[in-house]
């Protein structure tokens, strides 16, 4: 079974994509999600971002099993 993913964009990135969230279906892993997102918003290549899978930062590819939330986030700047 392939996964359904809600993709969130935060901060500066949401201004690049002009969306705060999109949905993507039939993806097998987080790398696929990243490829789809970058293809849809090529300007994202010019920015640093972090990726969180289900509210946990990830640094490598992860398999997706059902419904997930994947967030694209600029470097944090709270405080």
């Amino acid at each position, binding site marked *: 079974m392939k996964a359904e993913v809600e993709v969130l964009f935060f901060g*500066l990135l949401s201004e690049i994509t002009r969306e705060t969230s999109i949905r993507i279906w039939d993806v097998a892993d987080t790398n696929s999600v990243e490829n789809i997102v970058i293809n849809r918003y090529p300007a994202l290549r010019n920015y640093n971002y972090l990726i969180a899978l289900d*509210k946990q930062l990830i640094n490598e590819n992860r398999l997706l099993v059902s419904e997930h939330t994947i967030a694209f*986030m*600029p470097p*944090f*700047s*709270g405080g």
Partner: protein
Amino acid sequence: MRRSLFIQGPISVAFISAQIRKHQFKTDIGANQIFLGQVRADQTTNGLVTGIEYTAYEQMALDIMEEIRASLFEKYPIRCIHVYHSLGLVKPGGCSLFIYVSAAHSEAAFFACQELLSKVKKQLPIWGKEVMDKQQYQWKVNTMTESV
């Protein structure tokens, strides 16, 4: 576990005072370490900062905050930890971050507060957009060299 973290707009002095007052009922506390982050009216190449607009990935921030809290309680002999961060616009002079650590003794409160501030800045998914005069803005950058 308490799950409050975000406050809409600047954190008021009344709110801060109420927290201080509450801790005076706990007679096993000897040291209260408080950090108040305040928005500066910095002059930048894009103009004068007239405010910072904060956004966050709230659910993730709450989860990470619980992890930070648990790790500090494990590491330091402290009595309590409170963290509040603004969302939305905070003008210069306004308080956007309020950290409160209490302990029996000052060393624990100090080091826990320092580590807490560093973790809040580095690990919580919060973003500040510096709003400039002349209708411009730039995204705030936390320098990586900051130890706290």
